[in-house]
């Protein structure tokens, strides 16, 4: 059973389109995250949610909007896609917000903007 699953795995789309990436975890964790990994493999936090509440919102364009319908799901909607949005987006979860908790990652969504 996949612990943190993301769909789709690959997303190829045109500039200006709107797209969503879904994430689900079956670990019973309280906290979920979105990360962006660029072409140089640098990994940066975008958002953190704890019990469906937004905790961290890093300097991310407001074209990116996370939504957490329940503790097990954290989706990412992106409006007006730009070339610079091309990256791998990772969802992750941890048992709770406590900073010593390890995070469990999905296998990523590879977003390519044409």
């Amino acid at each position, binding site marked *: 059973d996949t612990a943190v699953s993301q769909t789709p795995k690959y997303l190829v789309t045109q500039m200006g389109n709107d797209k969503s990436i879904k994430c689900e975890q079956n670990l019973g964790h309280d906290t979920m995250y979105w990360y962006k990994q660029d072409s140089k*493999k640098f990994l*940066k936090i975008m958002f*953190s949610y704890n019990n469906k509440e937004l*905790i961290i919102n890093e300097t991310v364009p407001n074209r990116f909007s996370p939504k957490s319908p329940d503790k097990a799901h954290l989706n990412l909607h992106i409006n007006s896609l730009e070339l610079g949005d091309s990256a791998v987006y990772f969802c992750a979860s941890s048992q709770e917000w406590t900073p010593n908790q*390890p995070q469990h*990652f999905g296998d990523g969504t590879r977003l390519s903007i044409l």
Partner: protein
Amino acid sequence: AQSVAQPEDQVNVAEGNPLTVKCTYSVSGNPYLFWYVQYPNRGLQFLLKYITGDNLVKGSYGFEAEFNKSQTSFHLKKPSALVSDSALYFCAVRAHSGNTPLVFGKGTRLSVIA
């Protein structure tokens, strides 16, 4: 602000030899430190963490890491490398307090040669 430095982009080691992947950190107060591994087209997998106590931490797949407070380092080690250890390794730090995110280093690519 917290930060992590991984000074080597690439580490090459012969199979059976010991390996070290270096990491230094900067954080206000005491750190929580983590190592993650990423295989091609996969998400990050947690290897080990330092919270407090014993400076030598043992983790998955025979890896260990040594916390050195005076040198602000947390180097990853393994006594005998395997070809299957070849992957991208990330060191990460998080502060004990505040709503601070997990901050990753830029990653070190480990190549184990048979």
